[in-house]
């Protein structure tokens, strides 16, 4: 009887502390890990996601919207230094040669994470769509969402860098 709850075992926990949002957040984190493992070849380690209104400390943010039975936004957030490393790894180039490529690269990272997330969430009775990516770069800006939106911040560690994926859910 004590084994019943372990019958469905996955590599990453579905975050029971996030309640109904746990499986969605799990799908998003697994999408980010998958994109980095296959395309970037820089290993990521997932931390514990939290529901929070605090903007993650990041000056490069790639965002893609999604719409299905639930709609909202997925953002990939990192520092400029980390984003340059990711860009260089994607392009097979060196960090000092890719500054101009950074916006498109981070947009494509966000696109692949959101696309993979969409595939995990979408099914025949509930088809999901995603938008084109938008990339924000800078230090001094405010992001304003609907006051009733739920924001989940998922920390990811890449070597010495702290990255985040953020899930913003629009209330139904």
């Amino acid at each position: 009887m004590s084994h019943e709850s372990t019958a469905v075992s996955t590599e990453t926990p579905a975050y029971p502390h996030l309640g109904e949002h746990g499986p969605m957040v799990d799908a998003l984190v697994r999408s980010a890990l998958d994109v980095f493992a296959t395309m970037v070849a820089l290993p990521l380690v997932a931390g514990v996601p939290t529901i929070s209104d605090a903007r993650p400390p990041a000056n490069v943010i790639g965002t893609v919207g999604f719409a299905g039975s639930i709609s909202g936004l997925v953002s990939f957030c990192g520092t400029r230094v980390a984003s340059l490393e990711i860009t260089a790894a994607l392009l097979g180039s060196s960090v000092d040669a890719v500054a101009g490529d950074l916006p498109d690269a981070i947009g494509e990272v966000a696109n692949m994470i959101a696309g993979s997330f969409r595939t995990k969430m979408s099914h025949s009775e509930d088809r999901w769509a995603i938008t084109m990516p938008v990339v924000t770069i800078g230090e001094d800006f405010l992001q304003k969402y609907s006051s009733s939106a739920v924001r989940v911040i998922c920390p990811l560690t890449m070597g010495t860098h702290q990255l985040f994926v953020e899930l913003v859910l629009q209330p139904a």
Partner: protein
Amino acid sequence: MRVLIVDDSSTMRRIIANTLKKLGYDDVVEAGDGTEGLQKVAQGKPGLILTDWNMPKMDGREFVKTLRTQSGMEAVPVLMVTTHAERTDVVLALQAGVNDYVVKPFTPETLKEKIEALLGKTAA
């Protein structure tokens, strides 16, 4: 042999071009959307096309549908590289005239195998 890459992301075009270069294909032409892709085809017929699905102006499915109506382009091998991974998506892409399909994210090995299989298959 000329290879055409159609994708609105310059990053994805470079990733694909890097893999092609390793396979010995140096004659690579790039386009940022389907409309530009058709212009590049008119300038010199490619022997292989890799195209994204989601693009502004003209998406990958429209691009391939139009491509297939053009003389000499009815049978050119086309590989779609996209985040669309559902079975219904693959069916729609095949109906548009795509020969094979790679889901992003992909490893360089997967892309290499798909390209080699496609060229081997259609060359027969």
